């Protein structure tokens, strides 16, 4: 009889696991529905849902930018400093290039190193032009190539919860990084 209960219990657990998986379906607005392929600075190739389970702070830049991108990068570092150190392993700070042609994985790795952004929570991503455009649209970001080397673009830092739902956007440079980091801490705590 005991054995029977054990087996029934085991089966019950099996079923409930199954249900659990079904319940954790992605929210309808999640960016993890995107099916585009990306490469990171380590030349690993994956879809965005590989980042699922961590809070994301996302910005789009290009590394040869001399104007506002350095300010955006500085903002990202400020945000990093204000995220609880123990939460950093549940956070990804993601920089997506709008110049996939020049910003190769090798180039992004070099940029990460010289900018002191080589900790594991820093993720640099590139894809093809169509996926880059789609991703920019997901962030409601405007951009245009204005010369062979330069882009005109809006400055937006976005925060996503671990299920890929947009929970905050801050536009402009010199944004309130404390607010952004606060939102990240909240998202990690609630996950």
């Amino acid at each position, binding site marked *: 009889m005991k054995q029977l209960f054990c087996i029934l219990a085991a089966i019950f657990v099996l*079923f409930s696991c199954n249900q659990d998986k079904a319940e954790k379906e992605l929210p309808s607005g999640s960016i993890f529905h995107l099916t585009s392929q990306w490469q990171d600075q380590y030349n690993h190739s994956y879809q965005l849902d590989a980042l699922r389970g961590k809070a994301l702070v996302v910005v789009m830049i290009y590394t040869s930018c001399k*104007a506002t991108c350095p300010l955006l990068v500085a903002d990202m570092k400020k945000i990093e400093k204000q995220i609880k150190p123990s939460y950093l392993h549940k956070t990804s700070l993601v920089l997506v290039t709008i110049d996939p042609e020049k910003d190769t994985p090798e180039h992004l790795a070099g940029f990460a190193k010289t900018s002191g952004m080589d900790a594991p929570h820093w993720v640099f991503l590139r894809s093809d032009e169509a996926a880059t455009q789609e991703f920019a*649209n997901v962030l*409601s970001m405007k951009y*245009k190539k204005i010369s062979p080397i330069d882009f*005109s*673009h809006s400055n937006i830092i976005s925060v996503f919860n671990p299920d890929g739902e947009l929970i905050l956007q801050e*536009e402009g440079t010199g944004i309130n990084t404390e607010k952004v980091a606060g939102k990240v801490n909240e998202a990690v705590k609630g996950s």
Partner: protein
Amino acid sequence: MKIQLIHIIVFSVVAWCASCNLQEAVPDAESQALQPKQLSSQAKMVLIPGGAYKPFYGSDTALVKVNPFLIDERPVTNGEFLAFVKAHLQWQRSQVKRLYADTNYLHDWVGDTVLPEGINIDAPVTQLSWYAAKAYATAVGKRLPLLDEWELVAMADETVPNAREKKSYSDKIIDLYLVKNRQYNAVSQSPPNYWGVYNFFDLVWEWTDDFNSVLVTGDARSGEYSDNNLFCAGSATSATDVLNYAAFMRFSMRAGLKAHYTVANLGFRCAKDVDDKPLLTSPEGRDLASTGE
């Protein structure tokens, strides 16, 4: 007791496996996406020879080069989009991901595959997002037109390829823009423009592939698209664009859009690259232009 036990185990395992199989057997919207059915577009395409054109914004001297391309002679219709969502379940109203369309997506439709009563199936489809328009274009083997391509065609009136210098050109477009409920009329009923392209202005606004290249807010760099360049009345009446207030209306519209927005009078048409064909070098594209799809 033992037999009972075995029965229970066998039954449970069978039930569990069955439920697994069931999950795999039911095709959901996701897996449909992986095997898109080939749809064909009824819309005839017109060859536009391309060339260098002066955009409605930016500096006087900077010409933008546009390669030859094909463009649908009219916007995509309700009937065509209905056929598309029947074949691509993930774009039906109840299935579409919020990531790809706001809650007003195909708002007037009665159900996932039912058009509202009284609507003209030959009227342009509206109330759909950039993602949905792009998915349709891909499904029929086409793409969305680039903003520069669209604006190049928009320079034509009924008689000349570039009517921007005519006073009547912009006035007429603005009159058309102001007509209420214009999106409910059937396509291809009004006179075509110089290229043989219908309904560029009179029925709907249209999505373009790179609509998000119009920068007007939160501007990063004071490049060619500052607020002043695009909106300020001072620059609207400056030497280059005194007659093109209609274009400024379009650019304002685009600047205000986000890709998941759906709007009651915003539709789209498709475009396509041209394969290398010798006829492209012809200076008079009009007569050679029509190619059936």
